[in-house]
């Protein structure tokens, strides 16, 4: 398997050369995925916690639905966002297709179910444990929701990281809604797909190595922050 050696050499040489195009692609990937994960957290966490705490008709169906949506096929999300943002679609007037905003929209759709479903589970377990205590303090459901989210913040970090993993590794949706346009919507995954199509497997694998290192750095940083905060203020 000479490809693997060549791939690592390729990845190393790209990093050492500080290839400008590569830096641009890496930077865009990070910006898009972080923005998408932040938005998905802001939407998904209250949503998941609300499903955990409130009782309403059809709640079980919503839970099953949320869990099922974790496996949403990216190509389908890509198609839905494409049809929505296309000039002939409902949001066409904004001209967002083939721009980074379209990438973010697709990734938000993919990540929200993951964060919401995992948050739902975490908050439900905490609620089972602390419901009597919270009730005795006279906390209403709204207060309980924020208290439990805060209490579960370290566990919930894993949900956010799972979301980031999904967002940054995804290729099917961003290829459709972004168009893999050089210097505009080309991210790590679509760049890898392009190099595979050109038959440059070593370069593609090299880019893959860099993407994995990037994911390691993000997860490492999250772990460090969590660790520091936990020991200092935990």
């Amino acid at each position, binding site marked *: 398997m000479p490809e693997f050696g060549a791939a690592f050499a390729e990845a190393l040489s790209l990093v050492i050369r500080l290839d400008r195009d590569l830096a641009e692609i890496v930077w865009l990937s990070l910006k898009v995925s972080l923005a998408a994960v932040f938005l998905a957290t802001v939407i998904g966490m209250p949503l998941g916690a609300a499903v955990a705490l409130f009782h309403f008709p059809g709640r079980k169906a919503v839970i099953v639905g949320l869990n099922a949506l974790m496996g949403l096929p990216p190509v389908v999300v890509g198609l839905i966002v494409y049809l929505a943002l296309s000039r002939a679609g409902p949001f066409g007037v904004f001209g967002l297709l083939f721009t980074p905003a379209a990438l*973010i929209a697709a990734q938000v759709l993919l990540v929200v179910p993951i964060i919401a479903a995992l948050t739902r589970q975490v908050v439900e377990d905490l609620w089972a444990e602390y419901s009597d205590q919270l009730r005795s303090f006279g906390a209403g459901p709204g207060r309980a929701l924020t208290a439990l989210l805060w209490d579960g913040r370290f566990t919930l970090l894993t949900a956010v990281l799972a979301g980031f993993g999904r967002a940054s590794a995804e290729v099917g949706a961003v290829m459709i809604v972004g168009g893999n346009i050089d210097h505009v919507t080309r991210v790590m995954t679509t760049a890898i797909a392009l190099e595979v199509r050109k038959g440059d497997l070593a370069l593609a694998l090299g880019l893959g190595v860099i993407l994995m290192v990037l994911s390691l750095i993000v997860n490492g940083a999250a772990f460090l922050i969590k660790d520091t905060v936990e020991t200092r203020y935990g």
Partner: protein
Amino acid sequence: MMIRFWLAAAVACIWPVQAGAGDGKTFITVASTTSTQNSGFFAHILPLFGKNTGIEVRVVAVGTGQALRLARRGDADVLFVHHGPSEEKFVAAGFGVKRHDVMVNDFVIVGPGDDPAGIGGITDAAKAVRKIADAPAPFVSRGDDSGTHKKEQELWRAAEVDAAAASGTWYRETGSGMGATLNTTAAMRAYTLTDRGTWLGFKNKVGMRVLSEGDRRLLNPYGVILVNPARHPHVKAKLGKIFIDWLISAEGQAAIAAFRIDGRRAFWPNAATAGASRSAIGKKNPQPGTVNRRPSGKRGVEQLPDDPSERRK
């Protein structure tokens, strides 16, 4: 309150990413085929165009069929593809303003170096695919209704072989793009039909080589069309027209003629209005007459492989 917070968060998140991507610059969106992108063709000519005009060209490279659909929905300003009949239908239906000839390249049949079906050197493409079917040797088809796929089906019809009936045996349909299909072909030690541009730029050849080429039926003309602003008012007609005019101008045609992949030529300019380019290209091409001849021209094809850079292989 909550909704306003979410909206603010959304704008605060998306706006810097969006602005960082060079938004606000003058740009047009071109729907094109993977062959032009994978071969490095756009990377060669777009900087030349941008240098003089300051217009950024954003290329969305997909199959010809998908590019046509994108343009029909108004998601591109200019269409740059290679399937004549579909292009003419597109214009006739009022989606495009006018089709211009830009350039032509050709398809080649590639296969394993030891050539088990023995098609090496056969110019008649129908005869070549017939020999593959008779062997039978594995043949990988795009199977995706692309321009290349349609051309391949023409060849089977001409050879009077019902390849589709053999699907799953020696005839294998990948349903994917040219690059992916070439990767599959290499892994299966099979034969396939590919455009020369993608083939020359393709790096994972592992012993495959061009075995049959030069048939007139294998010509592959590219057309460029401005999406009709009467149909889609947001189309950047003025900028799009500047791009098209440049492509078919003497300067644009010379830029196309100068493009090389590893020293080999992949595209021959053939714009009808490029009378002036005759001299510009003539210096580099031993048969300047063929360069400007329309792809339907009879002698054009026999002379394609006559390019000096081709003889070097």
